[in-house]
Each structure stands twice: as structure tokens, then as C-alpha cells.
């Protein structure tokens, strides 16, 4: 299969979704400019023009309301936010209206909007350009929340979102944009609400989301030579969460580490740990461990960013701990010098 970068997969999914359904349109800051939201909307703009891909006033709340009102008339609006943090301005429309619409009006109409947003990380993104809101949106019945980690799911979940009856939040991760992977050319949907076991393993389950999936896979590789066999589960959807797949894996391995892109407290890591406590308790052979952001807002300075974000080594250390071994056995992974050039 040919490979695509994550951003290319998003772009392709969007274009195929727009081909399929003439009611899809895209609006957001800079969707039609030369950068095209880091490359993800440029092709759609080139193909479908300003009637279906257009720039907007910077008014996140109204934009979301507009999307809802257009959706109620049969459109399928895709709203794009260059940073997930801006969504706080849209939470009333998303949670108090879109999420509840079908229920409050009991199916009289539906508002299948798609809200795309990008989670920032590193290079001094700082406290308000780096947040990932899966647990916030996941808490409310009526929304679907997806978090693609691999390029194929970036495309597949985009296509799924464009066909869902529910309002869907897509949380993309900026740190994944340049990662590559196989992506089918056909418009293959990744079903919303399904997790994926990306690597089977016997000893410990790592349930991970978004960018942490790649860290989990790296951790699994780090642990291979030490004889610890890690199963990596990519949640893919934060709501609905694929509880069957997660619980089955935990029951198989008897050990659970959860690695999320947000804070553990009241986070996705808490939800997954709670699932284990409810439904896999008898099988657990070690305490569950949650990993996520350090318990502070995101700092800017590099040495602080380095300790703020968990990585594969942190995950590997916790996996070792669940089998009663010491993190000291791990050789430190060299800090990778990224080719990234600012200002982001």
C-alpha cells in the first residue's frame, strides 16, 4: 500500500468525503490560504473552490452555531480550528446545543457537524496552544470524539465523521502531522467507536491515545530486548470508547498502563483505569498506572517541556514496574533531534 503522511491522509479523506457528499463544506480560519491548515485543506480548496471551502470571521462561538444551523437544513459543515484550545469558546454551542439536539427535539432533526481541531505540542506552544480536550467532550452524551494516531485512521475517521449522524469532534495531533504510514486509496472508513490492537503482547497492556500511541509502540520496542511483551491498544475513539477491546486486552495481560495526551486527573487515563477497576478487577495482577501531562499548565521553556510530556521511556519504565522490575534496566533513549523549524 502506498504511504501518506498524517496531514496528507486528512487532506485526502476530506476531499473524498466532499466528493461523496455535495452537502459537505469546510469553514475555518485560513482554510483557503497558502498554508491551508498545515496542508490539510489546500487540496479541497483547489478542488471545490470558495463555495465549499472558505475563510471566516474569527468568532468560534458563532461559527459553531452557524454550522449547527446549516446542518439542521441538511448540510454537513466541517469546522476547522488550528488549535484545540480555541474550542473553549465554542463549548456552549457544541455541548449545550449540538450534543443535545437530537435528544432534546427527539429526532425531529439532526445536526451532524464535524469539528476538526489540532492539538499543539512543543516548541513553546505554551499553556493555551497545547491542550487536548477528549475527556471534556467525551463526558457529554450526544457527541462523538475521535483521536486518530495513524495516517490510515486520520483518513478513515475523517470519512467516518463525514458520514456519522452525530456531531463529531476530531482531535488531530500536530506532532503527528509529518508521520508516515500506509493509507488505502479507497475511501475506507475507520468505524467510530472501535479501538485497534496495534501490537499484541502477553505481559502488559498499554492503552494509548493519539500521539501517545507512537510513544507506546516505541516503548514496546524498547522493552522487547528486556523480555517484556507489550500489547498496544490505540483507543482511536474517545467517545464512544471501545470498552470491549480495552477490557479484553487487560483481562488477557493482567496489567494496564494508560498513556494519554492530556492530564490524567479526570482524563481519558482515568476513564480507562476505571473501566479496568469495574470490569477487569479479578484479572489485574498489578496496580493500574496512568500517564499523562504533568499536573501544571504547559510551560514554554525546553527543559520544562521535556519533563512535562511523558514519552516512550516513561511508558516503558511504568510497564517494567507493573511486572515488578526496575526502570534502571532501561537504557535511556537518546533525545531525538527533530528537524522541525519554528515558529510552528
Amino acid at each position, binding site marked *: 500500500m502506498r504511504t501518506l503522511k498524517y496531514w496528507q491522509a486528512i487532506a485526502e479523506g476530506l476531499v473524498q468525503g466532499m466528493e461523496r457528499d455535495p452537502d459537505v463544506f469546510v469553514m475555518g480560519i485560513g482554510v483557503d490560504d497558502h498554508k491551508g491548515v498545515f496542508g490539510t485543506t489546500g487540496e479541497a480548496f483547489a478542488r471545490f473552490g470558495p463555495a465549499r471551502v472558505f475563510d471566516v470571521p474569527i468568532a468560534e462561538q458563532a461559527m459553531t452555531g452557524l454550522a449547527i*444551523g446549516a446542518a439542521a437544513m441538511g448540510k454537513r459543515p466541517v469546522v476547522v480550528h488550528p488549535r484545540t484550545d480555541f474550542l473553549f469558546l465554542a463549548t456552549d454551542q457544541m455541548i449545550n446545543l449540538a450534543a443535545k439536539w437530537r435528544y432534546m427535539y*427527539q429526532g425531529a432533526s439532526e445536526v451532524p457537524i464535524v469539528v476538526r481541531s489540532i492539538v499543539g505540542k512543543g516548541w513553546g506552544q505554551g499553556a493555551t496552544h497545547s491542550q487536548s480536550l477528549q475527556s471534556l467532550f467525551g463526558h457529554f452524551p450526544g457527541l462523538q470524539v475521535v483521536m486518530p494516531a495513524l495516517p490510515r485512521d486520520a483518513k478513515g475517521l475523517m470519512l467516518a465523521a463525514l458520514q456519522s449522524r452525530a456531531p463529531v469532534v476530531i482531535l488531530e495531533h500536530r506532532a503527528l502531522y509529518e508521520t508516515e504510514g500506509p493509507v488505502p486509496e479507497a475511501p475506507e472508513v475507520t468505524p467510530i467507536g472501535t479501538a485497534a490492537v496495534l501490537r499484541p503482547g502477553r505481559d502488559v497492556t498499554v492503552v494509548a491515545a493519539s500521539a501517545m500511541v507512537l510513544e507506546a509502540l516505541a516503548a514496546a520496542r524498547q522493552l522487547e530486548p528486556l523480555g517484556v511483551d507489550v500489547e498496544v491498544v490505540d483507543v482511536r475513539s474517545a467517545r464512544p470508547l471501545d470498552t470491549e477491546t480495552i477490557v479484553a486486552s487487560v483481562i488477557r495481560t493482567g496489567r494496564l498502563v494508560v498513556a494519554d495526551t492530556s492530564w490524567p486527573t479526570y482524563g481519558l487515563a482515568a476513564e480507562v483505569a476505571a473501566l479496568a477497576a469495574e470490569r477487569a478487577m479479578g484479572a489485574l495482577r498489578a496496580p493500574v498506572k496512568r500517564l499523562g501531562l504533568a499536573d501544571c499548565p504547559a510551560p514554554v521553556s525546553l527543559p520544562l517541556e521535556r519533563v512535562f510530556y511523558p514519552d516512550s521511556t516513561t511508558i516503558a519504565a511504568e510497564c517494567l514496574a507493573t511486572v515488578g522490575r526496575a526502570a534502571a534496566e532501561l537504557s535511556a533513549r537518546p533525545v531525538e533531534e527533530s528537524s522541525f523549524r519554528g515558529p510552528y
Partner: protein
Amino acid sequence: MTSKPAPRRGRKRLGSRRRQPAGSTSPKSEFLRRLYYELLRVRRIEEKLALLYQEQEMRTPAHFSIGQEAVAVGVCAALTAQDVIYSGHRCHAHYLAKGGNLGGLVAELYGRETGCARGRGGSVHLTDISVGMVASSAILAQTVPVAVGSALAFKMDASPRVAVTFFGDGAVDEGVFYESLNWAALKRLPVLFVCENNLYATHAPIWVRQPKGTEIYRRAQAFGVPAEKIDGNDVFAVYQSARRAVERCRSGQGPALVECLTYRWLEHVGPLDDTDRGYRSRRELDAWKRRDPVKVAARQLGALGVLTPPAIQEFEAQIAEEIAKAVAEGKQAPWPDPRDLLRHVY
């Protein structure tokens, strides 16, 4: 699959539910009588609901529009069944004036499965897609941008449909209102903003919330939205203004705003008088009652020779009958089945 609202075409016109009693019979006078009929009907329904509300069997906070009906009726008379409207917490009159099913409203207030939202939405979440009453909601100004979005869809489809949003002077305090004005004007969208300025939000008079000397309609003008302030208790004035605005919308000239000055008779939420609570006076209410939109319309039409006392009596009888039936049915209607609690979640 999205349900595209496909409003019933050719639904009966305002007041045509029954044959009209005689009087002048030109189409114009027929239309004026229908406006009056609709106004009277909304008034009588709300009065009855307010009465029944006191039995404590409608367990849903209800905001009555008594005293303000001319806005809903006048604006909706300027719309077709294909046009859509949105409203806020004080939404019964808008729902009814747009042709929303009465039985569906009554049953909704009683929390029954036959309610327009099947007992899930309550008084503040009315919908009747078949007549273009898309949604009302309980968060202030929330449906304002939503109406703009529907207008965006109409414009994208080169459809002649118009979207209307009804909101109060309190919703004007919220920033999203201005975001919506800006957007509508920028994209020249066929949306009509109808501000029902009843001078209060909950118990706060407008001067506690908006600087003296400023005008809501002038704010809209600053965004390039043509706007005027009119007597919201004169159903014919409302109709005329709305008609001009809707024509503008329909002909692709973009949005408009109509600020309708009016007054709420009952307490903010609930069925009672509240002039003894200190935030407004009996005197003020009485002055506004002398400008009762129903009586004003009757006087105007009487003077034109279009409406006679017997005609009004016949209207009253028709309306009373319709209400009695809807109430009887609503009270008898089945409750939602608790096993359906999770229906219509994704």
C-alpha cells in the same frame, strides 16, 4: 442521514382553520382578519396554559408571552411555510404563530410522549419541523447564530428561503449576537433578526444592562445590518416591517433587524403577576395593558370596518373549542416509556 425539513407545502393559511365569519370580504380584509384571529388565538392559548400551569402538572419552567404576541404573529405572517424560525426560552407564541401543532405544545408541557419533543424538551425546547419551527432553546442567544447558519445553507443552495431568529433584549447582552450580525452582514445572508425588546431581562431593566442613550437597532446598523425600531404591540406595524425585511432577504440583499418594543405581562417564568416584587410597578404594567396588542388590533380593524363584534365572538368560540380539545388530549396523552430513556442518543 440528515432529516431535511420539508415544510408541508400548501398548509392552511393563518386563521383559515375554519371558515371566517362575514364582514368585508376583500383579500386584504380577509388577511387582516386572519392576523387578528391568529393574535387572539395565541393570547387565548397562553392564557389557558398559564391557568393550567397553576395546577402544578406541567413540570417544566414556562415563560409566557402574554402581551408580546403581536411580534410573533406579525413576523410569521410575513413568512412562508418554507421559511424557518428559531426562538429562545419565551417561545410558545413563535411556535404557534408559525403554525406549530397546538396539541404538540400542550402535550409537551404535560411531559407526554405526544409532545412536540416527546416530553424530552419541555417548554423551552419546542420544535415542529413540518411548519419550519426548527428549534427553541433555553440558553440566551444560542439560536441566533444557528438561524444565521440556516440562512447560509439557503444562500449556498440559492434557495429563496429565509431564516428568522427571535430573541429578547437580554440576549443582546451576549457577544455571540454581534458575531452573528457581523457574519450575516458579511455574507449577505437571508436572515431576519427579530429583537423582542420587552425592557426587562428576568428582573433587570434594560438600563441596568445596556448604556443609556444606546439603541439595539443602532448596534445592528453599525454592522451594516439595516434595522429599525417599531411598535411591537401593533401587529400590523410588525407585519409591514417584517415583510419589507423578508423581501430584502429573499431578493439577496442580505439580513435585516427589527426591534419590536413590547412588554411582558406575567412574571419572567411562571403564570403569575409579579408587580408586587419591587422590580417593576403595577402602574407601568397598566400603562402597557392599555396598549394590549389584541385590543389595539381589534380597534384598528373595527375602525376599518373589517372586524365586527360578532366575528370576534365566533373567533373566540372556535379558539375555545380548539384549546379545549388540545388540553383534554394533552392531559390524557401517554407518558414516555422509561425504557425509551436512551432513545435518540448516538
